[in-house]
């Protein structure tokens, strides 16, 4: 309804032979705008995020999460070596050291990435556990395999994590 009304107004303007005084600003504006460069015809749609599968989006997030919790910003800003060295107390020789012992807010590249890699393993294993338990598409052997793999992965990475933090903080939980 509103549209027909509008068209009607346009026709009235088009049909008018002489310009009434109150339409002068309108015609001046039209003339002025015609002097301006023509705006290209745009096909505009409201911006939308590209359709991503939720799981892919999650994997992307997890990847970023792993990088950040592995201290990648620390690596960029402070620029630590990927590994360190220490003097062996018994032999007096230099030995490589992967974990910067004792300091909570300092690290070598390797240890940070390893630690956050463990998070990713655990998360994915727990998701697998959930899937194994709730999916209807698995047959029994597959399901058992998934159960076994996920529980083993969780257990292994928890142990490794515990070992890593015990090395990092020598008096951990003591």
């Amino acid at each position, binding site marked *: 309804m509103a549209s027909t009304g509008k068209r009607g107004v346009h026709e009235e303007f088009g049909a008018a032979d002489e310009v009434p005084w109150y339409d002068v600003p309108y015609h001046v504006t039209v003339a002025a705008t015609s002097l301006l460069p023509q705006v290209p015809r745009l096909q505009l749609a409201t911006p939308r995020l590209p359709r991503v599968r939720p799981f892919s989006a*999650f994997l992307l997030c997890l990847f970023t999460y792993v990088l950040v919790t592995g*201290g990648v910003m620390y690596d960029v800003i402070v620029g630590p070596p990927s590994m360190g060295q220490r003097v062996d107390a018994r032999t007096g020789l230099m030995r490589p050291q992967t974990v910067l012992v004792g300091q*909570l*807010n300092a690290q070598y590249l390797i240890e940070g990435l390893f630690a*956050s890699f463990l998070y990713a393993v655990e998360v994915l294993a727990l998701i697998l556990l959930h899937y194994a*338990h709730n999916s209807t598409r698995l047959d029994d052997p597959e399901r058992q395999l998934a159960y076994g793999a996920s529980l083993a992965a969780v257990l292994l990475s928890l142990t490794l994590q515990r070992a890593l933090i015990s090395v990092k*903080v020598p008096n951990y939980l003591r």
Partner: protein
Amino acid sequence: MSQPLRPSLARLTSLLTPAQQELLLRSTVLALTAVLAFVVRLFSVLRYEAVIHEFDPYFNYRATRVLVEKGLYEFWNWFDDTSWYPLGRDVGGTVYAGTMYSAALLFWVCRALGFPIDVRNACVFTSPLWASLTTLAMYNFTNEIAGGCDKTPGLLAAALVSIVPGYISRSVAGSFDNECVAIFALIQTFYLFLKAVNTGSLLWALACCLGYLYMVACWGGYIFIINLIPIYVIVMVSMGRYSHRLYVAYSVVYVLGTLLSMQIRFVGFQAVQSSEHMSAAAVFVLLQLYCLARWVQSLVPERTFREFLRLLVIGSAAALGLVALVATGTGYIVPWTGRFYTLLDPTYATKHIPIIASVSEHQPTAWASYFFDLHMLTVLAPLGLYYCFTALSDTVVFAVLYFACAVYFSGVMVRLMLVLAPAACAMGAIGATSLLRSFMTDVKGAMQESRMWNGHAAVSAAVSPSTSASLGSSIRSGRRLRVEIAAVTILGALLLTGSYVRHSTWATSEAYSSPSIVLLGHGPEGRIVIDDFREAYYWLGSNAAEDAKIASWWDYGYQIAGMGFRTTIVDNNTWNFSHIATVGALLNQPEERAYPIARMLDVDYVLVIFGGVLGYASDDINKFLWPVRIAGSVDPNIRESQYLTRRGEYRLDGEAAPAMRESLMYKLCYYRLRDINGGVDRVRGHKIPHLDFSLQHFEEAFSSERFIVRIYRVKPPRNRE
């Protein structure tokens, strides 16, 4: 005792419907969680005493005392002429006073109830109390995210947040800082905002504005809220999740919230002028345009709408661009502050602003901090993220964004771990409950079955025909496996939670409960208490003249003012860069050149912290490069390389750089060290060779028991040459 109790309990429970029982259980658990949050933060009080911690809390304590003793108006008009001598500081206009209001409220309420506590105790116990409140806010927040009528995620999140080390680190009793109050305000504001989005009700939006006002009053971190909410709106609109509820919530929160935040003097017109707030304003305008476009779309046919949209987009883009250009060009919009810029470009501070980079809590985070502060949440939180992605809703989108932003910010600055911790708790609770729900159903089902059909199983086995026996047994073994796996998983979850509790308690007790004003050491006869700081400040308070001016590196300004009651040159409110640089120059110049600076600043005493005798590592010698860098950024004649060896190392042994050995800081720290302990520096771990010097313009006035604090008097100028 228990015999009469049990029937009465049974009678009580029989009176209640299951829903009421559940409510009773839930509120009991929640109350216990809140109590736990309070109790776990008392380690420092039990081990030391009800003492204010660290640096900034001393200022907050002093300000609270002014607020309580002189009243609100005096507090707002408070011009502190005893700090930043000779400039002074307009405290009322440069402080986030929410912390002081909270403590003063606690003080007044306790007094009104007849508990005669003093201001210091009110300040000490503010942070544990507000942590208890945070657990309650967290319960609501998580349930709002999870939706549905199951309140388990909220309960779990409340339990998790009550002892999460990342939050405890800033909120133990005595660490009376802005953050301890602000985290409650943050979560509460988010909760109210989600409530407003979920209901579209003006009332909740209004409540959210009030929460936001409290947050703004408390902490500069409110910038996080005023940027996160617009990002959320943008994401929601681009996901096609726009709704009128969202429109109402955001429009009200932006307009009223901004107006309210302008009432805080420290914020004032920044709320409409500074770049940090501009994204919120832009999103507000865009949201109005979007709403207008949708409205027009519902009225006119598609073709006309396209035409209209074209005009609208071009017109508004041009107008916005013009406004932005004019506003920036005329200087109406204030550019980003350094701290905010550091968040966007993490390498910015190290390159350009040494004073921000020098603060240890502004350092980027290494992996161990994440593990230490979140423990199992480092795994559960991404798991929760997974479940969030599988079941998106309006509130879940917010949770995901909050979590993602918090992870990023915590990576840039270690102190922002504090903002991540609640997000990780909410996410972790959602993850854990979603994972365990299906397992729990199995276990519960199996338990019920075994209870109900205990005798029935034998009968059914005898009755079932032999042909389907193999099939039935395979199904049964599959089910048994399910139940067993479920039981194992739940047991594992319990063990993991147990280790979380152990870790948190240990971290709180060992790492986060030290007031750092009183130190604990291990001597030959067990633990020894090292109270050098307070000893020295009390010496100042009782021996220095009333109007004495004390110069020290800015870290100790608040403590000198809070415990020594003397005028300081610079303090932890690092608002005047060049003033700090002047003090830096005083410390790193040779004595002859430092003396005129000291005279110019009208300094009576110079105070340095030296840990070499005891082995206290965070002393001024270890911090020494920061005064050099900060002074060097104002005076180009001072360069860091002058203070390093030729190979660019920071050493104090025979190879120490000449500028280092000549500097006033070196001399004040090592003065008479040979007489004290033969010249051994236990922090650097070797003998200091260059100890043959004397002081001409400074004289030792006081050294604390273990020489941690050394105070030197500035001699008056000599009358004759």
